[in-house]
């Protein structure tokens, strides 16, 4: 790339000059275009956690259908990115899939829109059905490295974790890991989807993700003997529960508030429950 550039600029490759210039022109045009076509409607931007995203998208679709002139647009990016977007005004609402840290709680207003169980998932063929919270911690810390040590077959355990800064990871660390660190041997994936894809295909793998996203291809383990189901999350028997939050920098504007109200309404909450989450109250 750079070599080409130098050669072109030196005039060694005259024939490529026009391509370079054409590229620059195109780039400029692309940069200018969005500025020309901008029209301001009542758009509510919702940005943040990829765990909350699919649920928010579903709610937004329904809200847009009935909501008249307001439009809600949902983007992923991650919990921390969502907080930042809410802070600098890019997002009207940030989505966060963990409870706020102390310093964050001072800056943001938050509304819990649902609670979500964090499930520990393995390949369906895995003989292990359940682990204690402590076993999960020791597995992810790299202290237990073979499935035989926890009652499974004699196979190595392959850890799959989320990237630093992910809300799911932070919730997992807070709920499970205590003072231990996730082993550096753990393979890092950047979305719930790719964690799912890996665990689905690898009989030695163990990962964690939102209860609502587990689906049929994975086996969600019992933790401390409790099934990871919405009912158990509701009764607070299942130990790994985190909130899904909508976060705003200050008091939400009327359009954003309308969407929040919709999500908290009976109808909105019912949709979330149907998708495997647990209602707030």
């Amino acid at each position: 790339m750079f070599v080409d550039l130098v050669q072109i600029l030196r005039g060694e490759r005259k024939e490529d000059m026009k391509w370079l210039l054409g590229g620059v022109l195109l780039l400029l045009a692309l940069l200018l275009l969005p500025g020309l076509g901008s029209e301001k409607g009542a758009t509510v931007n919702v940005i943040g956690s990829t765990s909350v995203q699919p649920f928010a998208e579903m709610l937004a679709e329904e809200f847009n259908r009935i909501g008249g002139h307001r439009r809600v647009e949902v983007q992923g990016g991650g919990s921390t990115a969502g907080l930042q977007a809410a802070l600098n005004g890019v997002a009207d609402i940030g989505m966060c899939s963990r409870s706020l840290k102390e310093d964050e709680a001072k800056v943001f207003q938050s509304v819990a829109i649902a609670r979500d169980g964090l499930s520990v998932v393995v390949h369906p063929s895995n003989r292990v059905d359940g682990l204690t919270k402590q076993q999960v911690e020791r597995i992810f810390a790299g202290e237990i490295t073979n499935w035989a040590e926890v009652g499974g077959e004699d196979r190595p355990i392959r850890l799959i974790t989320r990237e630093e800064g992910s809300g799911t990871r932070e919730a997992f660390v807070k709920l499970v890991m205590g003072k231990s660190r996730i082993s550096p041997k753990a393979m890092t994936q950047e979305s719930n989807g790719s964690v799912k894809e890996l665990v689905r295909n690898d009989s030695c793998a163990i990962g964690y993700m939102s209860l609502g996203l587990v689906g049929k291809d994975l086996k969600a383990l019992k933790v401390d003997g409790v099934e990871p189901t919405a009912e158990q999350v509701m009764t607070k028997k299942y130990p790994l529960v985190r909130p899904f939050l909508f976060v705003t920098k200050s008091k939400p504007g009327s359009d954003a508030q309308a969407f929040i109200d919709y999500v908290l309404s009976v109808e909105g909450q019912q949709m979330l429950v149907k998708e495997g989450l647990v209602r707030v109250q």
Partner: protein
Amino acid sequence: MSTMRAQIPVQSAARRPLLARRRLDSERVISWVLFLMALSALSGLAVITAFIFKEGIPIIAKVGLRRFIFSSHWYPLEGEFGILPMIVGSLMVTAGAMVIGMVFGLGCAILLTQYCPPRMVSIIKPAIELLAGIPSVVYGFIGVAILVPFIRDYLGGPGLSVLASSIVLGVMMLPTITSISVDALRAVPKSYIEGSIALGATEWQTTHMVVLKAARSGIVAAVILGMGRAVGETMAVIMVAGNTLELPHSILDPVRTLTSNIALEMGYAAGDHRKALFATGVVLFVIIMVLNTIALRVSRRRSKVKVLAK
């Protein structure tokens, strides 16, 4: 008729000075406009460079260059920034990709220039160049869907590995290496080949003892350019490398490269963590600059050789 034909050139000849002057002015304007546009591309490069250094250098200074580069503990939220595993990861993956890209790319180039009838060249060469147009996420997806399970089932380990990334990157480098090597091999003077054949060498002897030697610097440049692509590739590598934070012990171990470290964590990072990712970018930038400088040097030497040969 003939008189009319003769008249036309006379008429336009009379107008020519005026037209020519007007054209000269517009030429100059266009050349200035084009110059400014070219400058904007360059200033883009300058801005990027200045920005990543401005963001990245302070944290390197704070952590200490040696600890930043030689520590293997990366716990950004706890203030530990060591990128050794990622540097090693990037280098291992790139070296692997180079071996694969070089063997297959050079093989292709030799076939296309020495053995292939022109008709087949006109099919194979564009086909290989088409590889360059496939988005990297597609390579990554094919890697995850086919290559990774294959490695896991037949070679062991988690499948996501140095090997998988090297193969994917090697295939992605093929078009670069092949097309530049083809140019280098074609630039070898016919007389060398004819001389070698006349001395009784076989086609293969001619190829590997004469043609490859004569085109060596061009081939090296091709490989280094391909290497630049491999070091910088991100998306496909994130998907197949596994992104662990540990130093890899074998080619079946997963790794994290410098680029995937940036891409994985950038969306979330804030404060020192973000700056450390820029610092990762600085290290990557330096590595790529070094590679490109080498490539420039080598290709310049090649053109000197050509001049001498003439």
